[in-house]
């Protein structure tokens, strides 16, 4: 639990200012609605994403730890990072400094050169989804719903970084985003590839591999008649949304799946306007999908009615 | 540095068997601890521990079954009530409370027993020999 006052340190990350501006807009909108105040850490710097760490780990850790030190100085016990990559890097470095005294010492020396210091473990790094589900709680969210998303079929996409290497949720099969979307009134489809990788930076290194990874996820969502994919990371959103034309071209498929942020879905359910939520800035338009809200769901293709001599399923 | 002399009072059903299990698995640990077998850790009166210190023991171990596992049911509850007070008493008399180790080892925990002995011997080695206190 964070400070009871709902105040959190906020680490926006580089994409929120640019390609993922809609994620920032919708985050600010729902925070206002839920009474959460995210205080941006002053003078935060880049989280090193995946490239820098593979170049020089200690330098990268020190770069990342600088953000932790700034957050600690501002008195935050909880630092919110809405993007999976930033969350993982900050969370990992905090953990490494606690577990490995050698790293702690090297990073400490680097920070001291800039007049900074950081005591490992003093700042809890949290993902925004974790704040909404654990601290605010799903009941508080449902209380704010004015326009339930009934009729909309969504595929909850966690991405591969959030629940690995360890988290309070099952690394293979987390369900807290599913629960949130269900609470918003949407129908959450069966989506086994919810934690499979979206290709990450592979789109810049080897398109064919990346496009095949993206195709699998789109195909799995489309198979269950999902109207939209809901994600929690700007990188995943970009990959699944921006490269749909290339995937359709390469694999002769006809996917048209809008990829939206869970904060945008919450905003819609809270009855906020598209403009406030940055809806419309996505490349694969979500207009057709949002028209489904309030309509009856299409008839399930697989007959749900149990055959008379069907065997019972083990209860989950 | 003089090798510390340590006396261990072990309960017959759990910690003594834990020591045997460590032996059967050929785990190695320092030879400083001499083990005395008692039916239950509840049998160990504070006087026995104090008398061991008086005889010049640098450290005393009182090892029993985990709470709830005692072969006699609640024997080790008494240990859990007497020994913390004895530790405080040592402290108030200027004797390092770490000289008295009170812990719980089950018959299956050979590894834990060996580690306990290694760590305790190191702790005692770091302290000045107890004999100096007596003079």
């Amino acid at each position, binding site marked *: 639990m964070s400070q009871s006052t709902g105040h959190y340190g906020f680490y926006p990350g580089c994409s929120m200012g640019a390609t993922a501006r809609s994620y920032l807009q919708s985050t600010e909108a729902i925070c206002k609605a839920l009474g959460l105040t995210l205080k941006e850490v002053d003078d935060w710097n880049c989280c090193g994403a995946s490239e820098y760490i593979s170049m020089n780990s200690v330098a990268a850790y020190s770069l990342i730890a600088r953000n932790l030190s700034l957050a600690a100085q501002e008195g935050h016990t909880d630092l919110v990072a809405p993007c999976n990559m930033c969350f993982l890097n900050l969370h990992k470095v905090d953990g490494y400094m606690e577990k490995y005294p050698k790293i702690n010492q090297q990073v400490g020396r680097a920070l001291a050169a800039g007049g900074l210091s950081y005591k490992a473990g003093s700042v809890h790094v949290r993902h925004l989804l974790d704040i909404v589900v654990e601290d605010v709680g799903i009941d508080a969210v449902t209380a704010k719903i004015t326009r339930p998303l009934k009729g909309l079929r969504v595929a909850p996409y966690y991405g591969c970084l959030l629940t690995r290497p360890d988290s309070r949720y099952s690394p293979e099969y987390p369900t807290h985003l599913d629960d949130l979307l269900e609470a918003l009134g949407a129908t959450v489809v069966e989506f086994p590839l919810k934690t499979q990788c979206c290709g990450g930076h592979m789109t810049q290194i080897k398109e064919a591999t990346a496009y095949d990874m993206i195709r699998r996820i789109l195909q799995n969502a489309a198979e269950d008649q999902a109207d939209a994919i809901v994600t929690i990371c700007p990188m995943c959103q970009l990959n699944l949304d921006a490269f749909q034309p290339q995937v359709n071209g390469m694999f002769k498929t006809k996917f048209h799946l809008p990829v939206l942020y869970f904060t945008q879905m919450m905003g819609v359910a809270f009855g906020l306007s598209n403009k406030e939520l940055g809806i419309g800035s996505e490349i694969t338009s979500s207009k057709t999908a949002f028209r489904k809200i309030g309509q009856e769901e299409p008839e399930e293709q697989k007959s749900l009615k149990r055959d008379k001599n069907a065997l019972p399923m083990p209860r989950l | 540095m003089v090798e510390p002399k340590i006396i261990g009072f072990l309960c017959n059903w759990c910690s003594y068997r834990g020591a045997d299990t460590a032996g059967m698995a050929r785990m190695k640990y320092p*030879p400083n601890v001499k*083990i005395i077998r008692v039916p239950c850790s509840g*049998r160990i009166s504070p006087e026995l521990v104090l008398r061991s210190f008086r*005889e010049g023991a640098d450290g005393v171990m009182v090892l029993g079954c985990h709470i709830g596992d005692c072969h006699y049911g609640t024997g080790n509850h008494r240990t859990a009530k007497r020994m913390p007070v004895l530790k405080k008493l040592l402290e108030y008399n200027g004797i390092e409370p770490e000289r008295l180790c009170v812990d719980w080892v089950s018959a*299956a925990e050979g590894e834990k027993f060996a580690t306990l002995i290694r760590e305790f011997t190191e702790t005692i080695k770091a302290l000045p020999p107890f004999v100096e206190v007596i003079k």
Partner: protein
Amino acid sequence: MSEARIGVYVCHCGSNIAGTVDVAAVAKWAEDLPNVVVSRDYKFMCSSPGQEMIETDIKELGLTRVVVASCSPHLHEPTFRGACSRAGLNPYLFEMANIREQDSWVTTDQVEATKKAMSLVAAAVSRVAYQQPLESLFVPIDPNVLVVGGGVAGIQATLEIADSGRHVYLVEREPSIGGHMAQLDKTFPTLDCSACILTPKMTNAANHQNVTLFTWSEVEKVEGYVGNFTVTIRKRARYIDEPLCTGCGVCQEKCPKKVIDDVFEAGIGYRKAVYIPFPQAVPNTPVIDRDNCIFFEKGTCKACEKFCPTGAIKFDQEDEIITLKVGNIILATGYDLFDARRIPQYGYGRLENVFSSLEFERLTNAAGPTLGRVVLRDGVTVPKSVGIIHCVGSRDKNYNNYCSSICCMQSLKFAHMVKERTGAEVYEFYIDIRTPAKAYDEFYQKVLGEGTHFIRGRVAEVTDAARQPGEEGKLIIQAEDTLIGKQRRIPVDMVILSSGLEARADAKEVAIKFGISCSADEWFIEKHPKLDPVATMTDGVFVAGACQGPKDIPASVAQGSAAAARVMSLIGQGEVEIEAATAIVNEETCVGCQECIPSCPYGSIEFLEDKKKAHIIEALCKGCGTCVGTCLSKSITLRHFTDEQLVNEMIGAMQSMKLFEAQDLVIVE
């Protein structure tokens, strides 16, 4: 104790002790210890020549105390006590120094090991001088026996003891005995029909004149000690009057309420609210499941009562509390199956056609929900390809480290039965194939011969998300094939998870109830893993079958017989020797403060109102010494563990350590 004449015997134990401890030096050194008249070392003290050496010394040298420095008292204290009493010396005038498990085996440096042995011998010699002769208490053994758990191990033990003429109370928690074995269709490696070989034993056990069967019952409380246990049993209400019920089964036909049977049918079959678990159930008296019976929910229906020809339905029946007197107890409470839902990536509970091993056993069983037809979850389609995954939840640091020992053979049996009944392609994903008994590996060769594909690698994931063409609508098993060093994706129609065995969920509480202890994995701890696997550290309580660790049916049956033999030998002796080391109150010094009375775990201390003194009831005292530790005025002494003995044992050790410290003794190699 100046007049004590002590004999010291240092054992080589082959090289176990002599390999690290200079036993000759220890024996030599012990000669100069106070009151020691003879000190020898010998290759194997526990051998008959070793024991005879002690006996002759006692007789010829008039020894009044004996110390043997060898292994742990838990191993050979009874042996050497026997030697002493054979030579006319009271067995309690004997003490051991544990210089093997607690010295030679755990110390690398030979000089240190030898010095430690000397200190331990000095401690024992200093202690033994203060030991007093004691006469043990002999307590008659109640010939009746309690067997807890009606699985194959429990049934075997019950039959053996009943056949020997003794009375057995068999308590089983479920409505019928039979345990997990009754759920199986075939048994490996002989492919016998499980029910065919088990049912005769079940009926024998039930109808045996020396057996009282309590099903749908649990043991609530156990008091007393070996030979004299008082057991309280709760016989849960069946809401059916057993003598009146003929087992005609009409009530089950007429009962309108159908419920998923999570216990016997492992969740893949149904049963009525009034049911017997399977046709050959023993006893074949049904039980009414109170939680699902419409009468108990809404007060209506009562169909079973209307149609019952003998009026055996009794809705007002109450639980019965029964108290029994028994001399020995055998725990044969079996195992629980690992719940595969704890591994989300295998999809059990989420993907329809992923089955647990017990579910598949019920599928293949002729009396099962599909009358033996191997079909998918829709109850109709016959699978064309089946994947079987070994070690689900076993040999896995995230779940259970141990190998559950039966899953390989079980998986091979499944492969054979799938081939035989459906002709489907079968893929087995294994780490190692373990076939450790007679005709096991031949069975493996047979299954190989039938064309089952074996892929060596732990399965990473079972998913229904198709990726390549040909995977649609299938379950894809992704695993690394370590033999060809490649990742493989095998699409199949059905997946069987060979889940491992786990201790019963309530094993810890049951262990505390019967006064025994559990290992870290919550299996019951045996007295000695190799030499005494069916006894426990609590005399009179024995274990048999999977409750002591994963094992297959032959091993469980063998342990059932073993536990029965141990019980019969105790009953044969007619009485059992109770530790003489009990506590006694010194009435001169006792001031009647009564602090000792609540400290006794067994309530065996009473307060004599007239004398205003505490008094210990010897028969109830187990000799734990807690009261001795509580009494401030030291008015209670625990025989064989008196303050004088323990303090002198400590002094013996301390003085020798101080001696070595001073001389910095150099041991002549």
